[in-house]
């Protein structure tokens, strides 16, 4: 598995990687499509607040609960806010939560896993025990408990999402580091006098990066879903902040009386984002590890 992945990986650096990526994207239209969607999401996250037609927080009770029209593309909510503007502006917060929690869990789980796989012994046992304990909970329920206990803030949503993903990262990183424990390049580094910590950080970690990046992309979708689910039940983000989960929650009551657009569009945005991350993760896995392709 490793030699094939290594063979497909470029020896001449960036140019070859780009060529290979272009090949994979051309080969698999779906990945190209997902990549386009991803660019759209990033653009909305960066420029969203500057390009939306209406102020996402401005209420206009005269225009409350209006169905989608030319003026309000996605209609207006119960206090007359423009749903389209809110959906676009919310991209930044949702995207930020997902990226931040994935980066955090990469730091915690990735490093702990690499250390566990490389050093073995007690480090391995402790990391394994922590991961097992987290896995003993239904993940969303544990995230609820953590946010409720630590306080109802966006930071804690990020932290809780990172913690529930910890076992996944720790396991992947552990397995990958473990097979490289006695690899040639590790022994070479050891013989030229590098310390063990230096080997972990400078040799082993960069080598498992491709697989960890795939892992990050695959869990991004779950991170967004988890965060939106938490804010749907009233944790973390507070009104009137625009965030997809809370917007669906606000629109839920109007679903039974026929005002479908308030909850529908943020829900749709959420779905598209998760769908995009999942497709992208599968595509990235094809680039990094063609053998695991399904």
């Amino acid at each position, binding site marked *: 598995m490793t030699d094939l992945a290594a063979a497909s990986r470029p020896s001449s650096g960036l140019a070859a990687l780009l060529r290979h990526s272009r090949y994979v994207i051309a080969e698999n239209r779906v990945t190209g499509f997902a990549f386009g969607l991803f660019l759209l999401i990033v653009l909305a996250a960066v420029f969203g607040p500057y390009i939306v037609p209406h102020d996402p927080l401005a209420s206009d009770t005269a225009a409350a609960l209006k169905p989608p029209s030319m003026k309000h593309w996605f209609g207006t909510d119960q206090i007359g806010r423009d749903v389209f503007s809110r959906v676009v502006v919310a991209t930044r917060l949702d995207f930020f939560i997902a990226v931040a929690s994935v980066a955090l869990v990469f730091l915690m789980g990735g490093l702990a896993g690499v250390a566990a796989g490389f050093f073995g012994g007690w480090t391995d046992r402790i990391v394994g025990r922590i991961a097992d*304990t987290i896995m003993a909970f239904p993940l969303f329920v*544990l995230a609820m408990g953590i946010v409720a*206990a630590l306080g109802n803030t966006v930071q804690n949503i990020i932290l809780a999402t990172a913690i529930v993903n910890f076992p996944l990262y720790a396991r992947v990183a552990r397995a990958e580091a473990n097979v490289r424990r006695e690899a040639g390049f590790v022994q070479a580094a050891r013989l030229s006098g590098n310390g063990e910590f230096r080997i972990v950080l400078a040799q082993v970690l960069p080598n498992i990066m491709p697989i960890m990046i795939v892992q990050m992309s695959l869990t991004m979708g779950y991170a967004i879903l988890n965060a*939106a689910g938490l804010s749907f039940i*009233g944790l973390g983000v507070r009104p009137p902040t625009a965030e997809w989960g809370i917007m669906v929650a606000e*629109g839920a009551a109007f679903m039974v009386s026929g005002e479908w657009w308030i909850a*529908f569009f943020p829900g749709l945005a959420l779905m598209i984002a*998760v769908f995009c991350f999942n497709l992208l993760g599968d595509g990235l896995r094809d680039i990094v590890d063609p053998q695991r392709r*399904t």
Partner: protein
Amino acid sequence: MLTMFLKRMLMAVPSLIGVVIVTFLLTRALPGDPAAYFAGPAASQEAIEQIRAKLGLDKPLIVQFGNYVNDLAHGDLGNSLTTGQPVGKEIKSRLPASAELTLLGLIVSMLVAVPLGILAATRPGSLIDHACRVISTAGVSLPVFFTGLILVYVFYYLLGWAPAPLGRLDVFFSPPPQVTGFYLIDSLIAGNLELFWSSLKQLVLPATTLAIFSLAPIARMTRASMLAVLASDFVRTARASGLSPHMVIVTYAFRNAMIPVVTTLGMVFSFLLGANVLVEKVFAWPGIGSFAVEALIASDFAPLQGFVLTMAIMYVALNLIIDILYGLIDPRVRLEA
């Protein structure tokens, strides 16, 4: 056989200990002073001290943990701050509602996903194979609360087929005499068919929501494992020996393909128990999930802690059952034990 059961039971013990420690730490991690928190914002310093002593918070952490475990062993999960009722009692009375919903959702999902996965695997490249792939990719991307709301809009508001998403029974009915706590079963025991239909109607949408959610991983796993089994030597031998395709698929391949699927059920349950909370909120389902959400809104920590603990214990127990099932399906596991 019995030794295997006992061994599995023992393996669940470290998980349980971990779960109890984490739930204990979660209360102690409450921001600020828990005593001030439980006393409320208007309490005087004296009252806070009194509560601290009453809650045992003035004792060392390890003694507090001992007290906590002791309370748990007596089934005491503390009292709700808002209602003053014991949390354990409330959770016990609400648990059947959640269990009925989750189990029905899982059964529906298995009934659809397993045949779908098998059909997709036996006819690769066909329409049903593509359908299986689309469903399993879309299914994992759908936020479960969103699916629920869409179903409510289509089947309640637009078509009028489903009743209003307001709990387990129509207001005109009263619950059947409690035997199992499952309204579907209890109403049948009571011989009340009208009540059975009413509770079934209320269950259809939330159970479908959960089923759609858990469909994806089960279908995907069934397809993948069926494909692997169909390509294996023993299936080829069975085919070469002239057994009918039906016999090969049902008797030989199916049983072996189910082994990884049963293992995936553990992960499915983890998602399902979490999704249950969201679905209960959408459908105003009076289960333990909505109990926890209500407690969250009121910043009432004891019910939430009880809920997290109950869910975790149930999850550990479910994993235990799955492991035992695994042994029943796969005799090799039994031999090793």
